[in-house]
């Protein structure tokens, strides 16, 4: 089977990661930001898997599966927090949550 090589994989991973970062930095809706974080995690997963295939070692796969497991747990906790925030503050817009300002 013809391999597509390392660089295209890394390029896609990089693009996905940048999209995720842009989403986190610019979107005001908490849920969208949350999804953007997931996007970043998956971009990293893609890079890991790409490296793993390139080097022939399974370490990358292991890390990717670990990240998925952590991301699942994080999604559960994160969504619970979002729901609680909505219940208490009636807001899911990031710019309304600025009680920590100095």
């Amino acid at each position, binding site marked *: 089977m013809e391999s597509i090589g390392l660089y295209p994989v890394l390029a896609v991973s990089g693009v996905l990661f940048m999209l995720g970062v842009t989403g986190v*930095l610019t979107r005001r809706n908490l849920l969208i930001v949350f999804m953007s974080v997931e996007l970043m995690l998956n971009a990293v997963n893609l890079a890991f898997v790409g490296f793993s295939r390139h080097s022939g070692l399974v370490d990358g796969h292991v890390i990717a599966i670990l990240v998925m497991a952590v991301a699942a747990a994080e999604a559960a906790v994160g969504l619970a927090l979002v729901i609680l925030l909505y219940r208490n503050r009636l807001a899911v817009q990031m*710019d309304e*949550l*600025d009680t*920590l*300002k*100095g």
Partner: protein
Amino acid sequence: MESLLPVIVALPLVGSIVIALIGRRVSREVSGWIGTGAMFLAAFLSIRVLLDLVASAAGTVTSTTLYTWIEVGDFTADIGFAADPLSAGFMCIITGVGSLIHMYSIGYMSDESDRQSVWRFFSYLNLFVFAMLLLVMGDNLLLMFVGWEGVGLCSYLLIGFWYENAEFASAGKKAFVTNRVGDFCFILGAFWLFWMLGDHATLNFQQLEVVVHAYPMLVPAGGVAITSVCLLFFGGVTGKSAQMPLYVWLPDAMAGPTPVSALIHAATMVTAGVYLICRLHFLFVLSPIAMGIVALVGGFTAFFAATIAVTQWDIKKVLAYSTVSQLGYMVMAVGLGHYVAGFFHVMTHAFFKALLFLGAGSIIHALHHEQDMRNMGGLRKYMPVTFWTMTIAYLAIIGVPGLSGFFSKDEILWLAYSTPPEHVALLGEGFRIQRIAYGLGFAGAVLTAFYMSRLYFMTFFGEYRGGHGDDEHHAEPHESPWLITVPLVVLAVLSLFGGLFNLPHYMHGLGLPTEWLHHFLHPVFHHSMDALAFDLDTGKEFPVAAVTLVAIGASVYAAYRIYIKDPGDAPDPLAVEPSRTWELSHGKWFVDELYETFILRPIHFVSRQGLWAVVDVVLIDGTVNLVGRTAQGLGRHYGRLVQSGQIQTYALAIAGGSVVILYWLSVG
């Protein structure tokens, strides 16, 4: 026998700790007897050590090392004790006189109205003896310094024993601070000496003497360095032994209970300075200039303090200035290189001055804390034992032939008169220090005879001037209990016969051993004695003593005329129409006021207006406040922009930071 040494040191320490632990639960007599018992045991063992030294061959030193205290490179300092004839002599004085004074204290501190806990007194007193023994028995300078500081601490604690009286408490502080000035000189001297010896540096006294003799080029005789070292050590002496200019604490130290004045501020602690010079004799002989200054300061102190004692009314103040004066004689003797004579006077003075203080304490006790001699008088009828023992002490201190003080004081005066001038060079050949010292000592002896006669006549003769009938207690003075009179009698015997230890040369016809102390102590000092090569004219000893005697007799007669034969109505006839000199003397030459004006006030001024108002408030506080305000201001103006509370702002910072780091990593 060397195994006895740590036991002797430990006994008072154990006594002190035991009293401190159980003192609250037992009566004051029990704590008193525990302390006294420890002291008597230590005295017994000390005398055994001394007797063994007498019996053993000349030049013997017993020493024992418990363990190595400090070890740095080649340098070691041990916890070790040594007893040579000099320190054994001091040990016997300290424990012997000390145990008598402990016993006396049980009687003296029995006043039930005293609210202070007396066990504290005995605990401190035992602790003092421990520190003092450490001072004289420590075999190196460092251990000696521990004792040196320890006695200062105990002195402070005991002067301020009645600390509820603010004046007494501040007298304790004055003693401590004044002593610190001297102690600072002491430690600087030790540092310099250590540094000077270079590769051969040691602090052990025996090794020090060997090194100093073996490597003369390290310690050039007559050099600036050795003179400075000796003068720094002498600075320590002026503090502890109350010499000019640091003597001012000793008269104030009389605020403590009278047994403390007797033990610490007359018999033992204040002689530590004399001991230090004796111990370091091999350094002092190398510097004629330092010896000259020591002799001159001692002689001047002997005279100066005597002029103040002449007009004081407080019986303890008179004795305090007398102590300063007598210490001056000892310092003068060792300054002129007559170490044995200095030690002899330390010994006899310990006997008769302790007796004088204890006698004064007996009077004060009987009169319920009356110390003003103008309210005494006629006490010989009421207190016969105190009277007769005080009489012996009085005759001893003024130097009546046959009593201990006569032999020791006249030996010093004769030696001062006939010391060869080249030993104590200061300001060139023409400036004959030993004659000046002799003159000052002679004048001091005449004044001593006068003020002691005055004290004696004012307290014991004439009519009783205290007690105006309205107060039961003060109506009739009574003799003190046996706990007080027994130590008085023992000390009186010692004052009477103390001179036998070192009879002068001209008395060899009596069949008694002459100059015994001289022979006993010779091994300690023989190097210095040989170096000084005294060729004294023994023929002059008797004439010098005779001249002194005539002058003293005239002085006593003058006191008799003024205070007994023709007293008038006033208790102190000289004070009726005070002359200018009288007022100066009564005001202690206003030395305290001088120090206040020229030393304390400037220090206070610089501290308040300079160090506090400028350095502390403006510089230090200002810098700290400036840093704080800057941070506050920066935060207020720029921090707000960053700390928006918007998560996305923080996320942007993290992302931006990551980019910078990544860029830096990939480029580097």
